[in-house]
């Protein structure tokens, strides 16, 4: 009898030990935090980003996670407000205690949180455009989208080829516009291009004829409109209404189907630099990006509808992190950061990423394609 009791106790203890040990077989989860502008004025950026992240994280988890580490995804919607972004990043770091942060849809949102992630030492991949995010290099901050500087360079190269030397610049009052304008002003002299007009509008304006009339009075050979959202479509439309025949250049900020829809006929002939995603099927088969792009496009379109390049940036960020975790072998903020920095030859939707301690973006100018809108469709030029 006494022996029996002992046996029962023993078996219970051993059973519990078994339970304890089996639960430690399941690996520690990889916690990815994100803060995106899913609603608000920048929702056309944040919405595809979130959908992309959710879709791929679900897929990775269904396949058993990253080396057995399931991904735990925490997301907050910043509505595009820098103040909210700051609060949420604090929350991600101090309450949810995430291992990696992907997010910061707009440059404003990203720049607002850089100090926080730097101090907390959390690897952070931004999905915003401004060059200021990675120049100067910040230890814990990376980004995947092409910079405004690259866009300006690509545009100026194309202008040079066409023999354009005098241009009119027209930009909005948002963060993206202002940063882009500064890059254009700084780079133009290097390409022998003179900016003969520098007009500005409010992003909420519904008519830009005043600025365009002023531009018409100058001897500009082309118009460069650095902006995003609906304003560039209005610029294109107004220019057509005023009978301005100058070639128009847009930034990569308008690389979504929405722009063509809004601008209608006026969109034809407009050139812009953009990621290869929107012209994926026109790429030569030898292009290493083609298969990645087509598979992303297929998956996204099967589930949600037309792709935009912005969701692609989230895809790139997520897989840079996943690959870094695989190489690191452990869930550790510092080790994941080191491995992100060592990303080499990663073929993403934005281009082929080669990061280094002095380059936290890792994209070359060839990652941008020059595109012209013809008959309401994107046409790859080179």
């Amino acid at each position: 009898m006494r022996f029996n009791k002992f046996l029962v106790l023993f078996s219970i203890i051993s059973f519990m030990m078994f339970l304890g040990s089996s639960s430690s077989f399941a690996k520690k989860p990889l916690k990815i935090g994100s803060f995106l502008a899913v609603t608000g004025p920048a929702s056309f950026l944040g919405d595809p980003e979130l959908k992309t992240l959710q879709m791929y994280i679900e897929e990775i988890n269904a396949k058993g996670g990253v080396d057995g580490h399931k991904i735990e995804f925490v997301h907050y919607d910043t509505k595009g407000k820098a103040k909210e972004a700051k609060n949420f990043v604090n929350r991600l770091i101090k309450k949810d205690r995430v291992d990696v942060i992907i997010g910061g849809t707009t440059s404003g949102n990203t720049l607002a949180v850089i100090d926080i992630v730097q101090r907390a030492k959390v690897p952070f991949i931004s999905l915003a455009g401004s060059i200021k995010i990675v120049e100067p290099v910040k230890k814990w901050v990376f980004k995947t989208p092409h910079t405004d500087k690259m866009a300006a360079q690509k545009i100026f190269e194309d202008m040079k080829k066409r023999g354009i030397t005098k241009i009119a610049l027209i930009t909005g009052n948002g963060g993206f516009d202002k940063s882009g304008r500064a890059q254009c002003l700084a780079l133009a002299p290097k390409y022998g291009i003179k900016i003969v007009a520098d007009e500005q509008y409010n992003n909420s304006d519904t008519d830009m004829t005043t600025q365009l009339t002023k531009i018409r009075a100058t001897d500009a050979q082309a118009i460069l409109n650095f902006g995003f959202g609906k304003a560039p479509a209005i610029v294109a439309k107004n220019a057509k209404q005023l009978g301005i025949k100058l070639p128009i250049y847009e930034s990569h900020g308008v690389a979504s189907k929405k722009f063509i829809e809004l601008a209608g006929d006026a969109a034809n002939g407009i050139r812009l630099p953009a990621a290869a995603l929107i012209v994926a099927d026109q790429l030569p088969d030898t292009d290493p990006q083609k298969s990645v792009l087509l598979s992303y496009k297929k998956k996204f379109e099967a589930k949600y509808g037309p792709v935009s390049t912005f969701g692609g940036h989230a895809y790139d960020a997520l897989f840079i992190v996943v690959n870094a975790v695989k190489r690191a072998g452990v869930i550790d903020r510092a080790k994941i950061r080191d491995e992100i920095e060592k990303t080499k030859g990663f073929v993403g939707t934005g281009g082929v990423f080669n990061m280094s301690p002095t380059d936290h973006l890792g994209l070359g100018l060839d990652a941008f394609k020059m595109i012209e809108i013809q008959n309401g469709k994107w046409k790859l030029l080179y």
Partner: protein
Amino acid sequence: MKRLLGFYIFSFITLVLPILFPDNYYVTVVGLTVLINISLAVSLNLLMGYAGQISLGHAAFFGLGAYSSAIFTIKYGFSPWTAITFGLLIVFLLSYILSRPILKLKGHYLAMATLGLGIIVHIFFVQADEITGGPDGISGLPTLSIFGFPIDTDLKWYFVFALFMLITVLLSLNIADSRAGRALSAVHGSEIAAQMMGIDTAKVKSRIFVFSALIACIAGSLFAHQQNFVSPESFSFFFSIELVTMVVLGGLGSTFGAVVGAFILSILPELLIVFEDFEVLIFGAILMVIMIFLPEGLFVAIKNKIAYLAFKRYQKEVANATS
């Protein structure tokens, strides 16, 4: 002692919380926002609650403090404390010059004028990008030190903010119970009557306007140093409205009303985040319910109710004793 009993209890709770929970997200992270919002709401309440002068531009002074700290330390290399002094000087001059003409207006007109002030300052932050960094703002403010003691952790910032907030509350309580406070109440009640009693109403109003602006300015400087970053968005018209809501929600004309209002409005969004998409709806519904059923403000309504019950009880006791 009895007059400030509430204040002592409040200070005790504020200062003990971080000692008990030094690593709690709600205390040392959300707590910072709560503390700064309390200071701002209390300073706005001086103007709105006591003097009855509505201001929809309070965020402007808060922003001017923050931006002076950022600009003078980063662009011109001044020490943080010199920058704060410059900020105070700018805000003092601006608010003093503006106070007389602006405070001559009443009701909607005063609201319009202060609203305009707030929007003009915000446009300046966004558009003057050579000075203010434009919509991206300015980052990388130096660490603030007090007597050579660097304030570099959330916990240290909590104590700095708490101290500043408690001083603001104490000043506000003392002003309310002073001659100046009674003059303000008189102005609130009826300006003509106040003038009849020999109160220089223009002076009284202008003084409290400047004082309240200066508190907001210091709060802005501290906020900028704590965040290490300023951008125009934190000081927009909507933040002014939020501050007004805090004061009204807690109860106009009561210092602790402003405290309660600021506390609720800062902490609610954090708690409601679990509802995700419905967050804003629930937030709005809570505000509506409070304002419909307790129009005099949450804190004031509860205080009055308690006072009423105590009075009833006293009446009963008197009745029992006499019969």
